[in-house]
């Protein structure tokens, strides 16, 4: 007994030693910039010297009092929420199929799923530009079918951003859900049907609650990715919609307003964290608590 616990303690110490270097690197490259940005966001903006040391809330006041920036913030929330929901709706059936399939092509299907991740966001956004543009495939098809007379504006709209972003995050959602669905013994579905549940009830009362940890993880991951999306909103949204990441980049890189840009970055980080964590907490409270061991 004591030999075992001594062994455990040694294992734990070894683990801590091995984890230390990476933890240090992560701390330096993630925490230091955030702490710096946090400090900058309370400095005064100075057109000549970029910023002046001090302590003021003026950057935050400006953000929340200006309807333009409030709009950017809520547009970002709306796009991220829509894309997350769409990714969940489209992703769940695929993940469910992958988890249940006995096909010997399963690993090939998973590789196909990972394949888009090997192509950068910018390249994929460029692809969507070709598809959605005025002379693009969708418009050409609709005109040819006679549904519309003139090409309609698809590119540089919120719709284009939603489509493009959903496509980017979908594989993340599917892979996260699949890893959790894989662990479900699907005999529970048969048991539910045998007890009188139809397919809908079986899904709603049995499959979904058991899959809740995967839904929580996938939703959180995808929502964070959507909130922070940069390339896709810039290329597909154009002037039609502005999201937080491109907007704060503009403040820092183009307007040289580091203090305001920093405050925007912090607002984005904190809002994303609050929403993701509370969604996660809600799902866990509703479903997962009962299954935790």
């Amino acid at each position, binding site marked *: 007994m004591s030999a075992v616990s001594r062994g455990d303690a040694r294992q734990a110490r070894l683990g801590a030693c091995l984890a230390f270097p990476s933890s240090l690197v992560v701390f330096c490259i993630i925490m230091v910039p955030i702490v710096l940005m946090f400090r900058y966001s309370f400095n005064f903006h100075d057109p000549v010297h970029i910023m002046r040391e001090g302590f003021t809330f003026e950057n935050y006041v400006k953000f929340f009092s200006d309807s333009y920036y409030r709009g950017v913030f809520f547009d970002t929330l709306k796009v991220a929420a829509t894309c997350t929901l769409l990714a969940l709706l489209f992703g769940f059936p695929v993940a469910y199929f992958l988890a249940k399939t006995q096909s010997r092509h399963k690993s090939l299907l998973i590789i196909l799923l990972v394949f888009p991740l090997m192509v950068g966001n910018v390249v994929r956004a460029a692809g969507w530009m070709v598809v959605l543009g005025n002379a693009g495939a969708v418009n050409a098809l609709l005109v040819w079918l006679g549904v519309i007379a003139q090409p309609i504006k698809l590119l540089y709209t919120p719709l284009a951003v939603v489509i493009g972003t959903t496509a980017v995050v979908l594989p993340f959602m599917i892979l996260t859900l699949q890893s959790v669905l894989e662990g479900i013994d699907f005999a*529970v579905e*048969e*048991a539910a049907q045998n*007890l*009188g549940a139809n397919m809908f009830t079986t899904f709603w009362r049995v499959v979904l*609650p*058991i899959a*809740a940890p995967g839904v929580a993880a996938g939703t959180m991951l995808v929502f964070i990715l959507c909130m922070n999306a940069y390339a896709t909103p810039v290329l597909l949204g154009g002037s039609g919609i502005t999201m937080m990441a491109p907007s704060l980049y503009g403040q820092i890189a183009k307007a040289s307003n580091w203090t305001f840009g920093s405050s925007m970055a912090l607002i984005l980080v904190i809002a994303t964290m609050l929403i993701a964590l509370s969604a996660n907490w809600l799902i866990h409270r509703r*479903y997962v608590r*009962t299954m935790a061991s």
Partner: protein
Amino acid sequence: MANVSLIHLKKQFGQSVAVSDFSLEIADGELVSFLGPSGCGKTTTLRMIAGFIDPTAGRILIGGTDVTALPVHQRNTGMVFQRYALFPHMTVAQNVSFGLEMRKVSAHERDRRIELALDMVRMTEYKDRYPRQLSGGQQQRVAIARALAIEPKVFLLDEPLSNLDAKLRLEVREEIRALQQRLGLTTIFVTHDQEEALAISDRMAIMHDGKVQQVGRPDVLYEQPENFFVAEFLGKMNFFAGTCVGPGQFKTTDGLLLNVDAVTQSTKRVGVRPERVELVAVATSGNNIPVTVQSSAYLGSFVDVVLAGPNQQRLSCQVPNTATVSPADAFTTGRGLVMNFKASDCVVFNEEGDA
């Protein structure tokens, strides 16, 4: 409860026939087990009755009603799965409640029936636990309670004991049988364990390669196997090939003359159970076959002796443990003995392996 009729049931997966032409009448309150090696079609048949698999041909009647086209959730069968299949996110009581909620049973009546079902399997005190907090045997008892709470027309068990350890298997098996008899449940029990099937069944259906080999009472199947497969699958049997040479006379290919009561002109093989033969030092009345001891295994209540016959064929004999002589001394390897058995204990098979 209800009677079940399987009428020319057939299932084909692509080119392979899983179940071919299965017809069986199961009486109200009867326990019938499907026994056979894996891949024989027993589970496929059970799943067709539950509705998880659509038969290629044939019909299934439960209580006289044709359910062949009904989806699973409208068939009102209570199934117990091999791996329990309890809902991990629900307590024991919620698991049992699920089927009752599906039937829109009132909350008050639901509580009463949950209580009743859990009491039946002695799990009342665990009603607020989650499945992961229970042992395998307890989980399977909850699964039984869940299946019975809905008061199904047929009780279906798919190898329910195969995930339990030996002692528990016996316990739960006895519990299932007691419940089944007390409640008069029409039950179909799928297993690959012959001892289990023999112990629990009113009737057994032995299956092989998708075909039913024989259906009947356990003792009838054991004593009067209709074919070679049943004789060999259920218990052990010593076989002698040869031909009939006169009334009650059978000559083996080794030239030994045996007295066999049941022998006919078409008999090509004679069988005798290992526990129906005696090992003696000197030939006496009845059939005598000279044998040499190959090995012996001490199994507590009896000693399993492996012997070599005249043509070096493998024979076996079960000697009851009477504690008069040590098996190690009595059955030393290489010792010459005589295998003795009665003419009336022999079973005969024809060319096709049928009795």
